[in-house]
């Protein structure tokens, strides 16, 4: 076979070189000619080149397109490129003047010569008057099917305890995202004792029947609290979270269901696998923080574990307080805030009472003040009947005793 190929190559090479010798390659004979070279670029028909005279002087341009003089003779002014699918004006004029007939000649790849829009050719009219429109071809990135998890591939996942927090031996995630997720999981492991391992599996792959994830989790992480997240590529709804038995037993199942729901919700936000893994890992980290707080409240034995967790600076998801408020509403308000709210309430009440008292005092003072305006006041004059023979007074009198042991008279 190799011999036949070598013989064919040896025969074809002299023939090719002989045919190549028939083409005249342009040669610059002098500097003036090189300056007169027309830069058509091969993208436009010659009839559209503004310097048509120069284009006509080009070697090999004779008979290819109508010169500008013929356009001027016909009285046609043409500006700009023609609409696609329409015959060029130069072509029609050239036919009347005896120039080369046919569509405009391009320097680019030659068409099929029909001159019509190819997109219209795909629409076919049926005898009954209907049209067959071809379906639009959408470019979809197709994953090549992954091999099943067995043999050496399965060993890469399940043979030994993972060394890194992101287990992706098939490189299903992009390198950049893998590094980012790895750094984040390492950061989480530094800050919290409850570590996170993420195992990425193909979308069409399944855990081998002989592998028990729970048993593996017990085997690998029996001495340290760990959450193992099994992620199926671009199928976040299949994600599984595996906890230690001690953690499982410390809190009700609904807590873990809520954590899984929150992670799935975050994963559903993104479309691509790397983004999904990243979002779910971040959400799981946040949920683990609240889980630690919850365990602190529920089980005092875990306080030492929780005390080592110092991820208080992490932003909590919006659902995390709801999760905890359902079980331990008391952990959201610490003693200082309680005292502060109590003091604030007391101050507000005291201030309100003081304000009411002040207003009342001002009203009483205003009504009881002894100041009078300086405007003179005149009373209507009238005479009254006399009494007891008095000319000016009839004995009208109001008295009071200010002796301490006596009352008013």
């Amino acid at each position, binding site marked *: 076979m190799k011999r036949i190929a070598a013989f064919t190559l040896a025969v074809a090479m002299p023939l090719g070189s002989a045919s190549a010798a028939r083409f005249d390659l342009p040669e610059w004979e002098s500097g003036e000619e090189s300056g007169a070279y027309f830069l058509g670029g091969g993208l436009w028909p010659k009839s559209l080149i503004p310097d048509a005279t120069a284009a006509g002087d080009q070697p090999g341009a004779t008979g290819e397109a109508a010169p500008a003089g013929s356009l001027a003779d016909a009285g046609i002014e043409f500006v700009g490129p023609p609409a696609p699918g329409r015959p060029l004006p130069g072509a029609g004029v050239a036919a009347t003047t005896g120039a080369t007939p046919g569509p405009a000649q391009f320097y680019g790849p030659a068409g099929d010569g029909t001159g019509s829009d190819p997109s219209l050719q795909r629409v076919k009219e049926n005898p009954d008057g209907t049209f067959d429109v071809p379906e639009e071809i959408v470019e979809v990135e197709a994953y090549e099917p992954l091999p099943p998890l067995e043999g050496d591939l399965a060993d890469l996942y399940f043979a030994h305890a993972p060394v890194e927090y992101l287990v992706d031996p098939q490189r299903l995630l992009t390198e950049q995202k893998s590094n980012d997720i790895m750094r984040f999981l390492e950061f989480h492991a530094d800050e919290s004792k409850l570590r996170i391992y993420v195992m990425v599996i193909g979308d069409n792959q399944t855990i081998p029947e002989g592998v028990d994830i729970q048993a593996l989790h017990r085997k690998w992480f029996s001495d340290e609290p760990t959450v193992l997240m099994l992620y199926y590529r671009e199928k976040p709804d299949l994600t599984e979270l595996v906890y230690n038995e001690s953690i499982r037993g410390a809190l009700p199942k609904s807590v873990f269901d809520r954590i899984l729901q929150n992670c799935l919700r975050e994963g559903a936000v993104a479309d691509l696998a790397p983004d999904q893994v990243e979002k779910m890992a971040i959400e799981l980290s946040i949920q683990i923080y609240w889980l630690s707080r919850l365990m602190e409240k529920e089980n005092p034995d875990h306080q030492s574990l929780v005390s080592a967790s110092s991820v208080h600076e992490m932003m909590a998801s919006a659902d995390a307080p709801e999760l905890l408020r359902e079980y331990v509403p008391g952990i959201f308000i610490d003693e200082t805030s309680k005292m502060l709210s109590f003091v604030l309430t007391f101050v507000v009440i005291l201030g309100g009472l003081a304000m009411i008292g002040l207003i009342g005092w001002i009203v009483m003072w205003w009504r009881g003040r002894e100041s009078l305006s300086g405007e003179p006041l005149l009373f209507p004059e009238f005479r009254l009947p006399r009494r007891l023979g008095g000319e000016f007074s009839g004995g009208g009198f109001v008295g009071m*005793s200010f002796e301490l042991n006596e009352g008013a008279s």
Partner: protein
Amino acid sequence: MKCPRCQRPVDHEAASCYSCGYSEVEAAMTCGSNQVLLHRVHDAAHCLRKHERDELGETLDFLESKFPQMLFCAYLGTLPASLKISELGFWLLNHGQVRGAEFARPNENGVLVVMDLNTKQIGVSLGYFAETLITEEDAYRALNAARPNLVNAEYGEAIERIFLKIGKVLDKQGRKLRKLTREQIHATLTGQYKNVLDLPPHLSPNQYLKNPPAPGESPGEPRKTA
């Protein structure tokens, strides 16, 4: 109204008390029928200091400028046991003449504060016109407001406070009278209108002449007009 001596109720136009027969004649027999000259603040007991008299004088000046028709004066003395301060107030308003009081301030417009340091009693005597403006409740309220000062022997401040309180009452009554029309005031004084100022109905002889009373009707009862 009450009798200055026996404190029994007295009719509006009674010439003498029905109970004890007290009248101005009785008062003149007791205290004298002559006229006496009074200062605005007549301190016969010499219990006021100079600055108290000065401050009290300023207050009275202000009240007189505020109420140009009213007469404000005070008498502080040590009365004999046989003389009550109500009798003295009655007699002073009818026989006293306040120094510096203008003609526009007759004694019937007077508000006289009388204080007896022997019996530790204080009172307000009112002229006829002042009675129509100052009720007994208002007068007693003014006296009661000054009780702390009186107990602490701050007589000048006490009398000043009494006058200021009475001035407030007068100011209030003056604003109320300003809202009444002249016809309403006249009707009030003649008894044809609802007694806004709680004045006694005036029975003028003309009314009796126009509408003679029925044969069985008592002449002492006021006649209601339409």
